[in-house]
């Protein structure tokens, strides 16, 4: 069920990317798309009654039923790269605002 929610989030982000003309809203749409994608990737590895893939003094054996750790590791990478791209995008937004004093793409083109 949560996979449908993740796909819904992805589609909301894509719709925002296609329709918004405000630069900040475009960056936020990109983030929503990314969060949906991350949830979707994590949900691929879910197992009912599976525990988090960490050996502790309570869950102390590798013979127990774990959820799939590989999607989680890949999503860790994706989150960090998402932070990097968001920061770079916001830096571009800031320099656009300093130059044109507006955040709307349409008004930038007119000047």
């Amino acid at each position, binding site marked *: 069920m949560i996979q449908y929610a993740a796909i819904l989030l992805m589609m909301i982000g894509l719709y925002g990317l296609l329709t918004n003309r405000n630069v900040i809203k475009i960056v936020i749409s990109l983030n929503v798309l990314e969060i949906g994608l991350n949830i979707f990737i994590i949900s691929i590895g879910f197992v009912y009654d599976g525990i988090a893939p*960490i050996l502790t003094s309570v869950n102390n054996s*590798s013979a127990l039923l774990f959820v799939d750790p*590989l999607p989680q590791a890949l999503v860790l990478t994706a989150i960090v790269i998402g*932070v*990097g791209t968001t920061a770079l995008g916001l830096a571009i937004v800031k320099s656009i605002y300093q130059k044109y004093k507006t955040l709307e793409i349409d008004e930038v083109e007119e000047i």
Partner: protein
Amino acid sequence: MKKLLAFVLTIGLGLLIIFALDANTTFDDFGFANLAERVSTRYITKGSNVDIIFGQTLEPESGPANIVTSIVVDYRSFDTLGEVTVLFISALGVALLLGSAGAQKRMELNFKPNFMLRVGSRALFGIIIMTGVYVTLHGHLTPGGGFPGGAMIASAMLLLYLADDEFRARIKGFKILESIAGSLYVIIGLLGLVVATYFLQNFLPNGTVGDLLSSGIVPIIYILIGLKVGSEISGMIDNFLTEEEAQ
């Protein structure tokens, strides 16, 4: 009209994904992932036929008790090196776009921070830094690691920046710390090539699963990543909250 087209397009794409994955034999249903068929089994059992027991197993193939860490920093460490490079390049891009050669001053905040806010944030600063260091140090045993720990350290810096409109970190020190941490990561990888057989090989003893001092180079690399991520994001925060001094 354009919005309608975008709406139809997104709905179509969403339905396409749902129908492609529904009742697809090669794609496991939600909650029924078969780990025995996946490569993850190798990561969980650490390639041994005997069960790995927390606190007992000596010298496993990969040391960390946190299996996600053993994937991120041990099995796929080269991947993580690339990820750290991407973060470095994006920090470089932010510095190129927003930084300037001349003197810089703090950007005007919309509110005047008062005395209580300044002192309170200083008190919180130490606690947040300590949590970040703890999360970084225990990355191979508990959830967390270098990336969230570094982000916590950077968030402590952000707190100081927001609560005090005169505050500026010594950004030169962060740059040096970042370069040293990044270089040491590559040097440790090359040491693996020289001492053992391949790049980023874990050449130190793995110890007992679950000990703080275990799993060889994994905690060292995670500490370096924590320092690097923390200083990089702090540098980005400084870039965003400063502007060129008016001539």
